[in-house]
């Protein structure tokens, strides 16, 4: 069955989940799900001696669903530590529902092969795990969810978590936790907050046990069943890996500069505007160019949303932005700012991006600056599958922010190596083209024809404008027209749009 972005969704999945019909097609009321609660009486302790003891006390059994958060990114020790213990205990057939999976989680491949994990939902899958999944090592397809989509699935009960294992940089014995104090600090605990609220059992794992009451309180004691102290929950260097690299690549800087010009010439660049931009490469650099323009013209941002990096903190402290709203801190500078700055505020993933709740922060966003692996001539964006067809990226907040923001921009070079990034049809649709307004490359921009107002607004900006087809032709002229990637029939991943409908599927790659 074809959905509205032209993707063929196999009947069994189309019937089970529904197919994508447009970014605002669904406005369904629902009864909020809730976790089971076992009261804790005076005198009872939540502190347990080991991860194994916590697993036993939670009553973890074959077939249950467990979750983790990915705030420690490439520095995470918690997921591997807990999964190893679970495997040793002989528990099988688990459904794994972390907010995302990183390269560091490669041991999962063995747990899948051994039947410990038989189902996965995640924002993304990185190199080795992604490749293994794309080679078809798991019978059940992975469900790819955006950050907002995951929060929605948890709140509606579509994803019920039996036990959440949440690594926290600081906690007291009674379960009050935050991410901005301790050894391996990760700043915001935005993803973990959702799990803590809705899971039946909540286990906090920390390497920094502090006297009661631990404040500030990001995860409160009334949601926590057990607390475990371990030697280390993560590698502080891995947490910020690659995120705040300020590019010196002239092509990336040029793209960032053009991106900044688009914002400045848009109707949204005025006092009190809001923006979000990704980490790394051009998207990070755009904030620097924008900051210069803001200084020059005396314009202040009302808030910055994210995905927060140190350079955004600098903007806050310089007075270029009034507030930061933070669901995930990308580096130590951002994590430390959360502890220091009253106007740097921590929010949950649901507050951030859940399309099903009573209004997410992305709805208040003026401008978002995003990256892409590929964009096609319908402006559909792929951030999940690589040029070999294997899963290697993550959905993240891409489609959430694109749907919410008034101006959604994609920054990308025309080609990466030989691989064109502006293509006829993307391998996998994560964000539908109706949510993308401007594509920025090193040679100029393409504005979505749906946005005639922006075409008019940017007419005299001096930025070279092309149609998206022209950009594609230029990319193909440099690189040659790519042959289509060949897949087998087996579906290895279902891509949910943020509203829970299926926007695309990923199939097993042909070896």
């Amino acid at each position: 069955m074809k959905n509205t972005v032209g993707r063929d969704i196999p009947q069994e999945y189309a019937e089970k989940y529904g197919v994508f019909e447009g970014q605002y097609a669904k406005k369904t009321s629902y009864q909020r799900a809730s976790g089971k609660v076992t009261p804790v009486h005076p005198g009872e302790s939540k502190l347990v001696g080991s991860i194994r003891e916590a697993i036993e006390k939670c009553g973890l059994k074959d077939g249950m669903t467990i979750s983790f958060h990915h705030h420690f990114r490439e520095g995470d020790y918690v997921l591997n530590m807990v999964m190893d213990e679970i495997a040793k205990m002989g528990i099988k057939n688990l459904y794994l529902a972390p907010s995302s999976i990183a390269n560091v989680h490669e041991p999962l491949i063995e747990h899948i092969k051994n039947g410990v994990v038989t189902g996965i939902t995640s924002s993304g899958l990185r190199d080795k795990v992604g490749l293994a999944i794309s080679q078809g090592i798991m019978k059940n397809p992975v469900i790819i969810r955006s950050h907002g989509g995951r929060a929605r699935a948890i709140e509606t009960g579509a994803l019920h978590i039996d036990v959440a294992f949440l690594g926290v940089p600081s906690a007291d014995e009674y379960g009050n936790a935050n991410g901005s104090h301790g050894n391996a600090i990760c700043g915001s605990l935005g993803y973990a907050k959702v799990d803590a609220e809705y899971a039946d059992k909540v286990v906090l794992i920390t390497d920094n046990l502090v006297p009661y009451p631990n404040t500030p309180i990001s995860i409160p004691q009334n949601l926590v069943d057990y607390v475990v102290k371990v030697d280390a929950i993560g590698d502080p260097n891995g947490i910020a890996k690659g995120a705040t690299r300020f590019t010196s690549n002239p092509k990336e800087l040029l793209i960032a500069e053009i991106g900044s010009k688009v914002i400045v010439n848009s109707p949204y660049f005025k006092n009190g505007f809001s923006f979000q931009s990704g980490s790394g490469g051009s998207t990070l650099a755009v904030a620097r160019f924008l900051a210069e323009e803001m200084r020059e013209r005396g314009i202040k941002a009302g808030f910055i949303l994210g995905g927060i990096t140190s350079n955004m903190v600098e903007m806050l402290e310089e007075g270029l932005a009034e507030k930061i709203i933070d669901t995930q801190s990308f580096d130590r500078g951002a994590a430390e700012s959360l502890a220091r700055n009253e106007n740097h505020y921590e929010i949950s993933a649901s507050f951030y991006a859940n399309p099903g709740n009573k209004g997410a922060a992305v709805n208040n966003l003026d401008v978002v600056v995003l990256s892409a692996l590929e964009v096609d001539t319908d402006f559909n964006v792929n951030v999940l599958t690589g040029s070999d067809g294997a899963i290697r990226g993550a959905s993240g907040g891409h489609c959430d922010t694109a749907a919410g923001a008034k101006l959604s921009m994609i920054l990308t070079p025309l080609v990466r190596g030989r691989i064109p990034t502006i293509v006829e049809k993307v391998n996998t649709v994560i964000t539908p083209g109706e949510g993308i307004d401007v594509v920025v490359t090193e040679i100029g921009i393409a504005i979505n024809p749906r946005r005639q107002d922006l075409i008019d607004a940017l007419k005299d900006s001096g930025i070279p404008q092309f149609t998206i087809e022209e950009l594609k032709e230029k990319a193909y002229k440099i690189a040659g027209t790519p042959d289509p990637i060949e897949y087998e029939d087996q579906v290895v991943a279902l891509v949910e749009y943020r509203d829970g409908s299926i926007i695309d599927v990923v199939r097993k790659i042909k070896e």
Partner: protein
Amino acid sequence: MGKYEIKGQGIAGTLESSDIQIIIDQNPGAGIEISLKSDVEKQYGRQIRATIEKTLKKMGITDAKLIVVDKGALDCTIVARTIAAVHRAAGITEKYDWEEIDSWNV
């Protein structure tokens, strides 16, 4: 016998990104054999082979064994590295026929 005769092994190119390394050697009577490893095999493997074969044909080479490692090179790079590898394999290190080489440009 054409102008370019593969007399021994010739090598051109590096393993840097966006480059291609071509090692060419004799393959008497056995045609063109290309063993290709490429970062972009799935989308461009067919075209990389075709570009090398086309260039060899223009140079009058009918028998050669090639070991090719591609790091996402564009067609112009692939053509240049092929031409250079053939020259080296043919022992031609001076008096290049620039006019003819230029005529192969696309």
